């Protein structure tokens, strides 16, 4: 299986468009495909792929539960907690579930066994199919702070299709890292504007720290200026495809339709994109590492 994560520093550059069109065109070309939407704060893949959801699972995280009968008020739990999620005042500890990372420190450290592990839902995982494509998406509950546990749950879905396409959230911090970790290839989507370039540089720094093979796709390629292309050239980064600033694409996207269906003249862009990526990677390496991760 080949795992391709689609990311970008800047939001709104076209990650979801690239991800779902790549999934559909590859599926049409005979590949078995899984699509995972890891942008769990704002998942949009389903708006375009329109999957039939077959299963819904809650995503829960570990939090502590204190037995006030057993608690001696020694304060060790508050001392080990780095997130101020458990605070010991004069009596038994107060817990702030939203701040808890579920590290387990408090119940490991409690000398009298007064703290046990319990669970709290912070989101859900939905799985199903969209026209033969296996589909999974994570949805973070509104008001929750931490996306990574939901992303981990999506990525834990077992699948063995030829291709796994992961739609990552924008940015370069923990949710993005979680989404691209273990990928065989990371596709960075950008646009040739100053903001696009600035955020592309951050994204490149990120994939280089993670030592993942990557390439760039320039969307709305004829807006802006040449600085993005010049940057890629001087950094020896492959530009795998360019998509023009076609108002029809923007309109098709606005209605929640697939570019490859509504504007078939663009199908070849996605077929060629996959061919170019395949030439650049060692299939299966990412999958093996992902298993090792767990």
């Amino acid at each position, binding site marked *: 299986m080949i795992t391709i994560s689609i990311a970008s*520093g*800047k*939001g*709104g*550059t076209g990650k*979801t468009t690239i991800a779902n069109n790549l999934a559909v065109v590859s599926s049409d070309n005979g590949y078995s495909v899984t699509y995972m939407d890891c942008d769990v*704060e*704002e998942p*949009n893949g389903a*708006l375009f792929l329109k999957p039939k959801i077959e299963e819904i699972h809650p995503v829960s995280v*570990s939090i502590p539960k204190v037995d006030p009968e057993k608690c001696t008020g020694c304060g060790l739990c508050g001392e*080990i907690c*780095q*997130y101020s999620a458990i605070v010991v005042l004069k009596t038994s500890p107060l817990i702030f579930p939203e701040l808890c*990372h*579920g*590290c*387990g*420190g408090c119940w*490991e*450290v409690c000398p009298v066994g007064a703290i046990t592990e319990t669970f709290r839902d912070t989101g859900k995982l939905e799985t199903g199919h969209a026209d033969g494509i296996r589909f999974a998406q994570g949805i*973070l509950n*509104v*008001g*929750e*702070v*931490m*996306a990574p546990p939901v992303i981990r749950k999506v990525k834990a879905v077992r699948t063995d299709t030829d291709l796994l396409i992961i739609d990552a*959230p*924008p*940015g*370069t*911090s*923990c*949710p993005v*890292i979680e989404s691209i*970790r273990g990928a065989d290839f990371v596709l960075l989507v950008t646009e040739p*504007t*100053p*903001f696009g370039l*600035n*955020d592309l540089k*951050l994204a490149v*720094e*990120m994939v280089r*720290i*993670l030592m993942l093979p990557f390439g760039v796709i320039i969307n709305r390629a004829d*807006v*802006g*200026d040449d600085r993005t292309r010049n940057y890629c050239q001087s950094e020896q980064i492959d530009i795998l495809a360019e998509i023009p600033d076609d108002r029809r694409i*923007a*309109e098709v*996207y*606005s*209605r*929640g339709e697939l570019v490859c269906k509504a504007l078939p003249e663009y199908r070849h862009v996605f077929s060629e994109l996959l061919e170019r990526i395949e030439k650049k990677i060692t299939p299966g390496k990412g999958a093996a590492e992902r298993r090792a*991760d*767990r």
Partner: protein
Amino acid sequence: MKELTVISGKGGTGKTSVVASFAALAAGSVLADCDVDAADLYLVLEPKIIRQENFSGGKRARIDHNLCTACGKCKELCRFDAIFFDGEGNERLQKTFRVDPVACEGCGVCAWFCPEKAIIFAEAVNGQWYVSETRHGPMVYAKLGIAEENSGKLVTTVRQEAKKIAEQRGLNTIIVDGSPGIGCPVIASITATNLVLAVTEPTVSGLHDLKRVADLTSHFNIPTLVCINKWDLNRDIADEIERQVTDNGLVVAGRIRYDKAVTEAQIRGLSVVEYTKDGCAEDIKKLWRNVLDHLQGLV
């Protein structure tokens, strides 16, 4: 003093371009770029940095390979898949355990329980924040290190510094540029702010993401205005957004037309309202007057 936070749910709807124009229109405000993952406002405002500080979002574990006996307690306890058995060896062992700094969430459980006290658990620098002067007033912004944790804490730091500056200089408006999404940095950028402006676009994703943002601001009880950017890209969805927003008791404070001048201005390092007087610049000026009325409690 009033604080306005501009967010969007969906990325790339034009938050930063709107904020840059607001900065030019609002004489005497403090700017706070809280998109600490991908800060872009400085590209338009060309800040002169007058103060720079390191940011520490927490601690991080590191194993001293010389002391490690490879007992594996750390790996057993770590809940973040951050411990790997491929660290440098020592006199007794061919290899030892190692902490992957990217996966480490800084909980310190490994260090606490290591029987050999071989794990160093120390404050990590994971970003910088800056106080600067721009042609439109002071700006506080930050850069979170790549792959770093705790963007929320950095956002809070940036907002606090912006507030201090506003107090010191007697400026009565703070304009905060937020980040996309609804998670940690976004929640940190809207907590206890006076007014949120949610910038959306007339697409099915724009509408979907706006609903989640509106749920978020109502969850925290924050007054929220909506702006539909590039509204003429799909007039039907723009109308649909307006209908849904109004039904939910929120207010559409303005519509901005699609205009290539936005990108042209960005390339020249200008806000749109500095670059042109027509087209979408008119819409943004109207929007700003409306937002300001709400912010000052006149509406």
